[in-house]
């Protein structure tokens, strides 16, 4: 790679480079910002991500394969990059007042947030298993630290340690999978794997084992049943602003890797893998939704809801091996991720508004009577719950609609029925939150922070408005993955 080649490569991943350099610079700048004015660090972090977002949006139709085929910039990666950067900016808005209230203000918080966003952006463009592994680490390590940033609070430390141990375990499985795939095909590049399969030089037994390992490792990251054990404890113990971002960013990045690897490199293995995906998706939807019914703590409830949602996203992937459905698989999965991101941020910003110090204000009872004292918060939470349930005209409804349509196209009506039935079950616990807010008496306490309110109401409005005008959004999500 000569110099002009390298600069062309760097230019293709300019948004990523901006975020990484900005994070390094912010680390130094933060030293000169006094403890009372950490809001400035938050603002600077948001500006860095905004700059990167503007660059991405300015060249949305950019397509390039650079760094010797290790990086692929295409419609798929641009969509996800926008999702990650947007989530990062919203996460800063949610964090600022929350950290101040909980006495957790640290400049490194925002630096680590930038680094984890950069890891996710790298995941979106990764088209080589080595880069996938590095991106996975780059996005996970800051999240392990962020989960424990409330140390010496015990539940935060527990959350961080659990996440770290199970996370590194799952990364180990991913690496093992990569090694097996390399052993079977002699390459780690996704395009090279396809070539090896078509040339018939790949050891298919090893390759299937490697693909299964990759699915297990990444399944841990996105919390598929039966690899979900860590999720409720980690989500509950981590500071809520971190959990909100983790629930969206880490899940989307994990699915980015699964989608890219499976659809690009492993369509030939679908005979073996589709039944596995079928069972995983069904288990995830059933267990996530059923166990969520028993939860009284809102953070645990949302944790199980995030597990259930991972199941719905995986639905889109089940028919991935049929070449005429694969494009819709990607599009509906991306669309669902977007809907999930908006819905989650709406719900989590209300949770953050109600949370008090020492983990109080997180039980369902604390939401009783919310509609009287804080009608806006109650309304946004209601929109989020309806979107999670999948009630039209919210974005959540359309997300499920597209996923189920993809399933039917692929010829899996049984699984679609399971999806619909579990959605009905989920209505029980989602709507129970609404019942508490509107029909029970109580004295809820919430803070009035403008950024939090802006984030909550803006994403709630997006849920409804984008739900009504979803066509262009779906068309954008359908932009092809570059092969």
């Amino acid at each position, binding site marked *: 790679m000569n110099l002009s080649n390298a600069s062309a490569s760097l230019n293709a991943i300019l948004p990523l480079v901006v975020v990484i350099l900005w994070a390094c610079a912010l680390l130094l700048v933060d030293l000169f910002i006094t403890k009372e004015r950490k809001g400035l660090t938050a603002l600077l972090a948001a500006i860095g991500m905004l700059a990167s977002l503007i660059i991405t949006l300015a060249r949305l139709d950019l397509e390039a394969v650079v760094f010797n085929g290790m990086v692929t910039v295409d419609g798929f990666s641009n969509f996800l990059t926008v999702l990650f950067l947007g989530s990062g900016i919203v996460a800063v808005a949610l964090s600022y007042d929350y950290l101040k209230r909980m006495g957790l203000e640290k400049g490194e918080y925002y630096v680590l947030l930038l680094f984890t966003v950069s890891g996710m952006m790298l995941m979106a463009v990764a088209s080589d298993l080595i880069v996938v592994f590095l991106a996975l680490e780059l996005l996970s390590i800051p999240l392990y630290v962020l989960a424990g940033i409330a140390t010496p609070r015990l539940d935060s430390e527990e959350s961080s340690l659990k996440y770290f141990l199970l996370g590194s375990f799952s990364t180990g499985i991913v690496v093992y999978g990569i090694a097996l795939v390399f052993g079977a095909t002699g390459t780690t590049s996704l395009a090279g794997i396809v070539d090896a399969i078509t040339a018939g030089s790949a050891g298919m037994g090893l390759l299937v084992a490697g693909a299964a390992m990759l699915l297990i490792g990444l399944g841990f990251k996105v919390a598929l049943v039966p690899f979900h054990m860590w999720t409720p404890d980690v989500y509950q113990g981590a500071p809520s602003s971190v959990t909100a971002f983790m629930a969206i960013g880490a899940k989307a990045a994990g699915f980015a890797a699964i989608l890219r690897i499976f659809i690009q490199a492993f369509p030939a293995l679908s005979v073996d893998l589709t039944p596995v995906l079928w069972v995983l998706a069904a288990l995830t939807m059933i267990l996530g939704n059923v166990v969520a019914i028993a939860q009284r703590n809102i953070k645990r409830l949302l944790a199980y809801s995030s597990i259930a949602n991972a199941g719905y996203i995986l639905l889109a992937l089940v028919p991935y091996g049929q070449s005429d459905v694969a494009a819709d698989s990607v599009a509906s999965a991306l669309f669902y991720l977007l809907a999930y991101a908006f819905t989650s941020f709406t719900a989590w910003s209300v949770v953050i508004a109600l949370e008090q*110090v020492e983990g109080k204000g997180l039980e369902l009872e604390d939401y009783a009577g919310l509609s009287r004292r804080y009608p806006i918060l109650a309304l946004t939470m209601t929109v989020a719950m309806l979107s999670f349930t999948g009630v039209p005209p919210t974005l959540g409804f359309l997300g499920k609609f597209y996923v189920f349509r993809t399933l039917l196209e692929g010829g899996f009506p049984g699984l679609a029925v399971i999806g619909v039935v579990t959605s009905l079950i989920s209505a029980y616990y989602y709507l129970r939150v609404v019942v508490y807010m509107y029909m029970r008496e109580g004295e809820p306490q919430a803070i009035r922070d403008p950024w939090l309110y802006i984030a909550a109401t803006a994403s709630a409005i997006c849920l409804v408005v984008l739900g009504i005008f979803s066509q262009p959004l779906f068309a954008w999500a359908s932009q092809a993955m570059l092969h």
Partner: protein
Amino acid sequence: MIPDIVLFIILALVAVASAVGMLFSKNAIYSALNLILNFSSVAVLYLILGAPFIALAQVTVYAGAIMVLFLFVIMLLGAERLRRSETLPYQQPVSIILAAILAVVAIYALLFRPLGIEAASVANPDFSSPAAMAEMLFNEYLLPFEVTSILLLVAMIGAIVLTRKRQRRVQR
């Protein structure tokens, strides 16, 4: 001139013996020292394979830096005085069975190559020269190399953030 195979057998014996020694020594310090011996003999194996750069990296990074850290931690924590206690009674039989299965599978795979793995081809003699390594790192693997450096930076920041002592103040 000693033929390579004799050198290899001697080194392999040393490597295996030191690995076994590491597992069975009662004292953590002896374990660490055995591990150093193991790393060094593996480094010489790399040399025989014609990979001087990897051999040196093995010595400086593993046998050198990492092991010094290990020894420091062991001595600072006083871990060498810890009593070894068997907490899992079924551990030993299970481990023997698993090891036997692994050995059988490994021998079977080596002898019959059931999954169609070709015998390892002889590498280009230049394959592991420092120049070739650098060429690989800064051309083909430029991006992973740079990302790794960011990764190490992040890990360092994380370790400091989590362990630094600080005053907590909670606003009510």
